[in-house]
C-alpha cells in the first residue's frame, strides 16, 4: 500500500526515457549500532523531479539523505544492508568511488558549514580540487553560483572577505552556492532553508524550480508548504520507515495512509 509509487515502477530500465530513475533504493536497512534507523526502505527517485522527504523529527530523513551520497560512511558504527542504485550503479560497490558519487551528487546541509576561508574561496574550492585552474572559469562560476543562491547582490563587494562574517542565512546560501558551483547531477538538500528568511527561501525555491530543468533534487524539509509548493513527489517517513511515497498532489490531497493524513493535517490544524 505505502509503496505504491515504487511498485508501479519496477524494472525502471525498461521504462521510457522520462521515467528514468536517478536513485533506486531497494530494501535498505540502516543501524546506528543497535538502533534501527532505516527500515526496509524502497524508493525510486525520478530524474529531474524534485522529491521531498517529510516526516517528524528523528524519523530518519537526514539519515536517508546522507546515505544517498554515502556521507553516512563518516559515522562510525553504522551498518547497512540492501542496495541503492545511482543511475543503475550500486553506490555501495567498490568500483563506484565515493568521490565520483559525491561529485555527481551535491549536498546542502541542515546547518550552514562554510569553510573558514573567503567567500570566493568557498566557492572556488570545489573547482580547484577538481583540477580546474582557469581563473576566468572560476570567476564566472563564483558569480554564477552566488547569483544562483540569491547571494550575489549582498556579497559582491566583499567576496574576498571571510565567510564567517556572514549572517546565518547568508552562510547557508553560500553553502548552496558552493554546491551549485560543481553543477551536479543530483542535489541533496537537508532542510536547506530552515535557516533562511522568507525572501531568501523564496529565491531558493525559485532557484530549485529552475534547477529542476537540469538537475534532480531531493530535499528534506519540514516546511510542508514548501514541499507542496516545489516538489513533484513526496515521501513521508515515520520511525525509519517510508509510510507513503507518491506524487505530492496525492500525498497532500488524498493520502492513502491515515498516518500521512494525520501528519499533514496536524500541520494545517
Amino acid at each position, binding site marked *: 500500500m505505502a509503496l505504491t509509487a515504487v511498485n508501479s515502477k519496477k524494472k525502471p530500465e525498461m521504462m521510457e526515457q522520462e521515467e528514468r530513475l536517478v536513485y533506486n533504493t531497494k530494501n535498505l536497512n540502516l543501524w546506528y549500532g543497535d538502533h534501527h534507523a532505516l527500515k526496509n526502505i524502497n524508493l525510486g527517485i525520478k530524474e529531474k523531479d524534485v522529491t521531498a522527504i517529510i516526516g517528524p523529527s528523528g524519523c530518519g530523513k537526514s539519515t536517508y539523505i546522507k546515505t544517498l551520497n554515502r556521507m553516512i560512511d563518516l559515522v562510525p558504527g553504522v551498518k547497512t544492508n540492501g542496495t541503492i542504485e545511482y543511475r543503475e550503479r550500486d553506490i555501495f560497490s567498490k568500483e563506484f568511488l565515493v568521490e565520483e558519487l559525491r561529485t555527481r551528487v551535491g549536498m546542502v*546541509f541542515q546547518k550552514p558549514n562554510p569553510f573558514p576561508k*573567503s567567500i570566493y574561496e568557498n566557492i572556488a574550492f570545489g573547482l580547484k*580540487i577538481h583540477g580546474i585552474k582557469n581563473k576566468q572559469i572560476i570567476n564566472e562560476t563564483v558569480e554564477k553560483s552566488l547569483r544562483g543562491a540569491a547571494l550575489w547582490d549582498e556579497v559582491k563587494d566583499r567576496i574576498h572577505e571571510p565567510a564567517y562574517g556572514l549572517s546565518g542565512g547568508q552562510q547557508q546560501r553560500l553553502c548552496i552556492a558552493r554546491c551549485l558551483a*560543481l553543477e551536479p547531477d543530483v542535489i541533496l538538500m537537508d532542510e536547506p532553508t530552515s535557516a533562511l528568511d522568507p525572501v531568501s527561501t523564496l529565491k531558493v525555491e525559485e532557484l530549485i524550480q529552475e534547477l529542476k530543468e537540469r538537475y534532480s533534487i531531493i530535499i528534506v524539509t519540514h516546511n510542508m508548504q514548501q514541499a507542496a509548493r516545489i516538489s513533484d513527489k513526496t515521501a513521508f517517513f515515520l520511525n525509519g520507515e517510508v509510510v507513503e511515497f507518491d506524487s505530492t498532489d496525492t500525498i497532500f490531497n488524498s493520502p492513502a495512509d491515515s498516518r500521512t493524513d494525520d501528519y499533514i493535517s496536524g500541520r494545517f490544524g
Partner: protein
Amino acid sequence: MKTPNQDVSPVQQLLEKKYNGGFLNRREKIIPIVLFIMAAVSVLTTVGIVLTLIFETVTFFKDVSIVEFFTATEWYPFSNTDPVYGIWPLVLGTLKITLIASLFAIPIGLAVALYLSEYASTRTRKIMKPILEVLAGVPTIVYGFFALTFITPVLREIFPSLELFNAISPGIVVGIMIIPTIVSLSEDALSSVPEPVRHGALAMGSTKWETASKVIFPAALSGILASIVLGVSRAIGETMIVSIAAGSTPSAALDLTSSLQTMTSYIVQVTTGDAGFGTTIYYSIYSVGFTLFVFTLAMNMLAQFISKRFREEY
C-alpha cells in the same frame, strides 16, 4: 494586577528573593584581580630571568670586551694564556642542530599529525597519542645515548667520512625528540576544526587529502605554527643530547660532519665542570645564557610575525 504570589513557583520566589535582597557579588569583582595576578607571574618570570642574566653578564663584560664577544670567530675560554670569547661558534652550533632537527621533525611531525587526525581510525589515534606523549617525557639524556650509540654508527656506515661527533646525528635525534610535541599539539589543532566543515568538503567529492590540505590544515594553521614554534624552541634549548652526541668543540666551520658545541651545552659543561668559581669562565655562562635568551626571543618574534601574516590571509 493579581497578587504576584498567586501562581508564582518556588523557583520564582527564590529568584525574586535573590535579586530583591540586593545582588552584590563581590566574587565577580575579585576573581579578575586574582587571575590578573596569576597572569603577572609569567611576566615576573621574564623579569627575573632578565635580571638574573644581566647582573652576571655585566660582570662578565668587565673582563671581556663586547666587541670581541660579537666579532671574534673563536670560542676558546679555557686557554690559560690567551682565552678568546667570540660567541659566533656557539650560535652557529645551535643553529646547525636546530636547522637539522627542524628539517627532520617538522615534515615528519606534520605528516604524523595529519595521518592521525585525518586518516587513522579513532582507535589508532587513541593508542598513538598517549604513546607519543609518554615518549615526549623520556629524559633527553636517553636520546643522547641513542644518538651516540645507535644513530651515529648507522650514519657512519652510510657516510664513512662522518666523525664520531657531528651535527647530523644529534640534529636528527633532537628532531625525533621534538616530534611528539609537534604531533600532539598539531593533532589537537587539526581535530578541533569542526566536523561539519570537514563534511562540507567531503560532500563535494574531495578526497581526504584535499580536505586535509585545503580546508583543515589552513583552518588549524595558527595552532600548528604554535606547535612548531614550541618544538623548534625545544630544539634550540636542548642540552643533553647535544652534550653527549655533538662533542664539545666550539666550531666556526660550516660543515655538519664534525664536532661542535651549542650555547646550552656550553652552559651545562661549565655548570658541571671544574672551572673556578668567580673566574671569567664562570661568568661567561650568563653571557651565553643571555645570548641564548635573546636568540629565542628573536625566533619567537619572527614566529609570531609569520603567524600573524598567515592568520590575516582569511
